[in-house]
């Protein structure tokens, strides 16, 4: 019927998909190959794609070379998780207000939130550094969590608002008529209905927090034990003799836990994006 393809078209589509996927996955493939490559291979010329002395040694040695690797992995997830949790605490009530209530300066304040989306931390680093210093937060987890939260709140409000708008009003009205207070209605009626939306927004915020912790970490935190994965590994790149194969192994193993979690959550994320944020 309409969706039927000829064999040739099918082949063409798969060919294009293959090229697209190669582009998306090439760096991972390269990192994996590099992790197998013995160090003395690095400057061997001509270039060898494969040789028999490739091994998985790097995956056991990396734990000695990067002694804090486990800690970095934990830090990354811990920071991203904390950012997500705190962001949601701020986002949920605010998004509800923007979705349902009428109040003075509604549009103006929403514009301010969206305006924050325009900056990244990189523009505000110096004063941000001073703010964090005066609060005594430098070189703590908070130095990386607090800015992360601030820059993700607007995105969260924007995403969640469009979900909450889709929840039928009748239930809230019914609760209201029955004499429930506003807060009670929000907690007991709206939030349970919004769970799928909360998951989507939570995952989106988590990805944002996880993918972008590098800048704040290298600027606001000097404590090695607290560094997230990217900052922890980046430190090694500056060294005289970089054991590249171990570095690649560490990077791959480092992102593995989150990739596995994501594999389980991606279905919700895609379904949520389809249902919510885009189709207004």
């Amino acid at each position, binding site marked *: 019927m309409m969706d039927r393809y000829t064999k040739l078209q099918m082949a063409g589509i798969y060919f294009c998909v293959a090229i697209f996927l190669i582009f998306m996955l090439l760096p991972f493939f390269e990192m994996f190959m590099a992790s197998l490559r013995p160090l003395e291979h690095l400057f061997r010329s001509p270039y060898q794609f494969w040789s028999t002395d490739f091994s998985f040694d790097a995956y056991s040695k990396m734990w000695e070379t990067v002694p804090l690797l486990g800690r970095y992995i934990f830090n990354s997830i811990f920071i991203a998780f904390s950012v997500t949790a705190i962001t949601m605490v701020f986002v949920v009530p605010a998004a509800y*207000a923007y979705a349902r209530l009428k109040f003075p300066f509604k549009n103006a304040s929403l514009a301010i939130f969206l305006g924050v989306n325009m900056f990244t931390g990189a523009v505000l680093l110096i004063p941000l550094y001073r703010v964090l210093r005066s609060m005594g937060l430098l070189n703590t987890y908070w130095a990386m969590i607090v800015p992360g939260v601030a820059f993700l*709140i607007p995105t969260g409000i924007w995403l969640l608002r469009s979900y909450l708008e889709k929840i039928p009003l009748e239930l*809230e009205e019914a609760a209201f008529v029955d004499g429930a207070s506003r807060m009670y209605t929000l907690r007991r009626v709206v939030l349970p209905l919004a769970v799928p939306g909360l998951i989507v927004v939570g995952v989106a915020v988590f990805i944002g927090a996880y993918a972008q912790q590098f800048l704040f970490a290298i600027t606001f935190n000097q404590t090695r034990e607290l560094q997230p994965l990217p900052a922890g590994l980046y430190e090694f790149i500056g060294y005289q003799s970089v054991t590249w194969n171990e570095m690649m192994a560490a990077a791959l193993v480092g992102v593995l836990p989150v990739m596995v979690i994501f594999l389980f959550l991606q279905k919700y994320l895609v379904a949520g994006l389809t249902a919510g944020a885009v189709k207004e």
Partner: protein
Amino acid sequence: MSDVTQSIKGGVKHGTARRNILPEGVFAWMLVGPAMLFIGVIVAWPLAETIRLSFMEAGLGGEKYVGLANYEDLVSSRKFHQTIVRTFYWMFLSVALKLILGLIGATLLNAAIPGRALFRVLIMPPWVIPIAIGCIGWLWLYNGYFGILSGVAQKLGIVDGPFEFLAYKTSAFYSAIVTDVWVGVPMVTLFFLAAMQGVSRDLYEAAWVDGAGRWYRFRRITIPQIMPVIVSMSLLSAIFTFNSFEIIWILTEGGPRGATTTLIVDTYKTAIGNYKFGEGSARAVIIVILLGLFSLAYLFFLNKVNKKYGAK
């Protein structure tokens, strides 16, 4: 007080007030207030401070008011003009590529072929992993001695010896663009795909019955239907790309000889690298102004698009 007749949006009137209900405006601000306060301390105040610092000569030693001197330096600096031009070129090229590839990718993944759920998962890793980790992979790819790109190019005889992608001005710039596109494409693709799946099948079927081919349906149905998403994604991508810092910093630190120095990298180098807080702040203010103007122009354009394509 109008408490008793307060209503949620739907307009339900309450004749009897069993409890003292908060006025809607007060309640709303109780909900929005904390988020606003947080943003105020962490973003608005530093922004005000940045503006103040931009009129100072400030460093580790202290601050001295210098008026517009920092701005005057920038206005008369040819290097800075080049940086602005480079930044916009960087932004337009990268965003264009992200949108084109995103559109192609979404169309491919939207095709009814076996395995598309798997393909959809496989395009997401660049978006999900820390940007800095992806860049370490690209750093290796671009390496002349042990990267696969240079390796394959040598085997094919395109280059004689190892080719260092990040060592030459032009190749470093385009290499950084490729990596930036790589980071940005999955999200754009996903949003386009979501939008495409939201287009009503009836439209396609009606066109198909009338004998419209695939290309015609794509041009006349898909594109207009998802236009609002295309426009909003291009604004988002433009802002991300303009502000893209980690990719350039890890790949080249703005080099070689400034070839990949965009405004954001220039600001970071000036302020954090050289401790020239005042000059760095002036750059930051200019970034904010440029992005603000750009966004306004964009919103204007978005309005027109929405009118034309009748976005709900």
